[in-house]
């Protein structure tokens, strides 16, 4: 059994699965259940400043989109930070940390963008014995209207400034949680690093309306006939999150900055993918909210088994292993030529590949009267759409053409040498000197 013990910023946890700052980590009762279930750590639900706590709406806070059989694919929420008094949260955190010294406990914090506010709260958080803090610069709803959350995360200068205050007034690790509601994720990540952050975590949730009630014409979730954009999360956001993680991991300015990956992680495989893209650990929320805390058992056993198969003995063995393979489009090998191939033994003759290719792509699949579907190599550009729409996994594959053979589509010989757009004669920017 591979050892799942993870060291992230010097904080050890028995596995890389932390619960993200969110409703599941709002209070002692939930967090104790999470630790009993086997979670490696929690980021406690975001704390606000001393004083009367925020209030939440009293109608629905969540909206969802579903796949078949109501499988939850995406969730959004309009819940704010903790609506319980700061004192109560701090007391509970101290108790839990003392009872579970081997688990990671991180305090998420969101207070106004004033040095005094941070200076005031940080020592009190430190007293709890929490292993670190996470700065909530991500929540896109409600708090952002008050100049906090994603309103800070969208201004790199603010990120840098607040991070610096935290590093000044707090001596344990500082993680900066980033909002995806921004054009270029590399900028806030660099700002966090410049401010002295020990790590970034991402993504927070995405601005979203999950549906519109066509009878009342109200967005969902609907509060008395009105809706407000919520933060989108769950399996649907994973591809967006992974792209953003990879951008930070491969940006020279932030390369090597520890990342805690968040965004739709539901299974061990999702976690392994995030880690391969440079994350030192992962945070989970929606999957737990959908299925309960027990899912961590699947995640831990699945990851461990896969690591055994691959010969990895520690999570750090494969952190960032996929990062070197994330590149810009312009560097992709244009001499790599593939053709779709349909395995007739596996084909169930639904014709989806044909419809997709004929109607929307390159007319590269033929259909016979007796429903035999075959690829026309002369037309196939290897776009992969047929693979994506085929209901039988492995039935259609992309086969690389060997160097020296002739691509029947272009009539040109397949070259062995790597060649990309920067070298291509059609590129007016190509270096003529080469």
């Amino acid at each position, binding site marked *: 059994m591979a050892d799942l013990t993870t060291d992230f910023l010097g904080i050890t946890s028995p596995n890389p699965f932390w619960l993200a700052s969110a409703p599941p980590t709002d209070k002692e009762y939930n967090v104790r259940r999470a630790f009993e279930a086997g979670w490696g750590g929690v980021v406690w639900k975001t704390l606000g400043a001393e004083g009367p706590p925020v209030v939440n709406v009293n109608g629905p806070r969540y909206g969802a989109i579903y796949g078949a*059989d109501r499988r939850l694919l995406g969730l959004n929420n309009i819940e704010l930070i903790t609506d319980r008094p700061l004192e109560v949260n701090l007391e509970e955190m101290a108790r839990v940390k003392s009872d579970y010294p081997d688990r990671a406990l991180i305090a998420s914090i969101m207070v106004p963008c004033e040095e005094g506010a941070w200076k005031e709260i940080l020592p009190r958080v430190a007293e709890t014995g929490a292993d670190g803090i996470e700065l909530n610069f991500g929540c896109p709803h409600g708090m952002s209207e008050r100049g906090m959350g994603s309103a800070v995360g969208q201004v790199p200068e603010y990120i840098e400034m607040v991070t610096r205050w935290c590093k000044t007034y707090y001596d344990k690790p500082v993680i900066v949680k980033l909002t995806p509601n921004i054009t270029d994720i590399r900028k806030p990540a660099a700002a966090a690093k410049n401010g002295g952050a020990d790590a970034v975590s991402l993504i927070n949730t995405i601005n979203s309306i999950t549906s519109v009630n066509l009878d009342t014409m109200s967005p969902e979730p609907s509060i008395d006939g009105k809706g407000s954009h919520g933060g989108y999360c769950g399996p649907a956001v994973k591809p967006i999150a992974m792209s953003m993680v990879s951008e930070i991991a491969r940006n020279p300015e932030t390369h090597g900055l520890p990342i805690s990956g968040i965004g739709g992680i539901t299974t061990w495989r999702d976690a392994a993918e995030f880690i391969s893209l440079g994350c030192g650990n992962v945070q989970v929320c929606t999957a737990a909210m959908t299925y309960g805390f027990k899912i961590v058992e699947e995640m831990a056993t699945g990851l461990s088994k896969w690591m055994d198969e691959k010969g990895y003995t520690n999570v750090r063995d494969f952190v960032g292993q996929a990062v070197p393979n994330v590149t810009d489009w312009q560097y992709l090998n244009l001499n790599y030529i593939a053709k779709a191939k349909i395995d007739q033994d596996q084909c169930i*003759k*639904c014709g*989806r590949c044909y419809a997709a290719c004929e109607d929307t792509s390159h007319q590269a699949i033929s259909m016979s009267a007796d429903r035999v579907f075959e690829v026309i190599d002369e037309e196939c550009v290897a776009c992969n759409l047929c693979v994506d729409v085929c209901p039988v996994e492995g039935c259609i594959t992309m086969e690389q053409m060997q160097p020296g053979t002739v691509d029947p589509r272009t009539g040109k010989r397949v070259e062995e040498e790597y060649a990309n757009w920067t070298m291509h004669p059609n590129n007016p920017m190509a270096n003529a000197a080469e």
Partner: protein
Amino acid sequence: MAHGQTAPGILAGRLSSEEIETNFSDLHPPYAPHEAAVAADRCYFCHDAPCVTACPTDIDIPLFIRQIQAGNPEGAAETILSQNILGGMCARVCPTETLCEEVCVREVAEGKPVEIGRLQRFATDVLMEAGTHPFVRAAETGKRIAVVGAGPAGLACAHRLAMLGHQVTIYDANPKPGGLNEYGIAAYKATNDFAQAEVDWLLKIGGISVECDVALGDGGLTLEGLRGEFDAVFLAIGLAGVNALRAQGEDKPGVHHAVDFIADVRQADDLLKHPVGRHVVVIGGGMTAIDAAVKSKLLGAEHVTVAYRRGASAMGASKFEQDLATSKGVKLMFNVQPKQVHGEDVATEIELEYTATVDGALQGTGETVRLPADQVLKAIGQRLEGVPDALHLNGNKIAVIGAGRTSVEGVWAGGDCAAGGEDLTVTAVAEGRDAAMDIDATLRA
């Protein structure tokens, strides 16, 4: 009243009312909306889908399933009914296992097809429960058409003609319209008097009048008369005759035609009072044989045997129907033919002779077996009866060319009475619909 299953003779009240109610409940309970959505999601929306090709009425199956999936069951029903106005009944009685579902790519790939029949039922049920009729009549053409026979072919033809603006009069020999949907379909496939509800719904199109208890050849109803009175005639008279066993003792009390038995059960007000034998032997190998056998069992017969003269693979009833029968406790006996019905005053035993195929011909081997039989049900086929002399026949059915044109000008025929096509409800609907289109084109020419 409680005779139990082992009392000899043909008796009512073999089962409790609870048992009868359970036995005659819906064979395939309808989907709940969520179940339907999940079942619909299994459809791959195949290109040029094989299921459509396999459907005698060419229903756009992938489209209607997608409409269900997208929360539009009424639209799905309209897609179905525009091709097959009896889509509700067909959803219940079609042998989907040998039609659309047999060729579903998921049947081929996984042995588990998309449940097209049940999805069709879901959609049509939603629409019929709403009570709406989505079709409207075109402007009156002033043309009048007679339809003889209110079974699936006649109803489908009448509805399409009415929709096209013609006035239709349907004549039927039975007290109620519906044909085999009303008198022939197994009770457990069309519960809650669905056949009549469907006819009532169909007639909402308007422009159709129905006259029951009138058969061709009596009461002054003749083909010549109809030709004189109407602009066109559509014959959908079914197969009114039943074949004889040609076995000794066939006339003994206790020997019945399976079609009559099935019709009686369908029309019974109280199944508790419907008699059935202790030992029932059904002769035949088609759907009628299976339906009669299953019904006997469900009514409380202790032993029910279907005796068929050929092997299982030659049976007209599908594998699904055979399995249904055996799952209810019916015994299927192959390669035996009836030789004699024994009994002093009433049938008590049947003697069957084993058969073998020699040089391509089926013949008795001489070896016989006797089974207890206080009720024998003959299900060895129906035949055309009462067909007007003027019509040419093809084999023993009315000869037709194209969309049901008979040898007599202005007369079309479809359904079981016409040559060609399988004797299925869905085929009859297709023939009625297509004849209507041809009649319309002819009358407008």
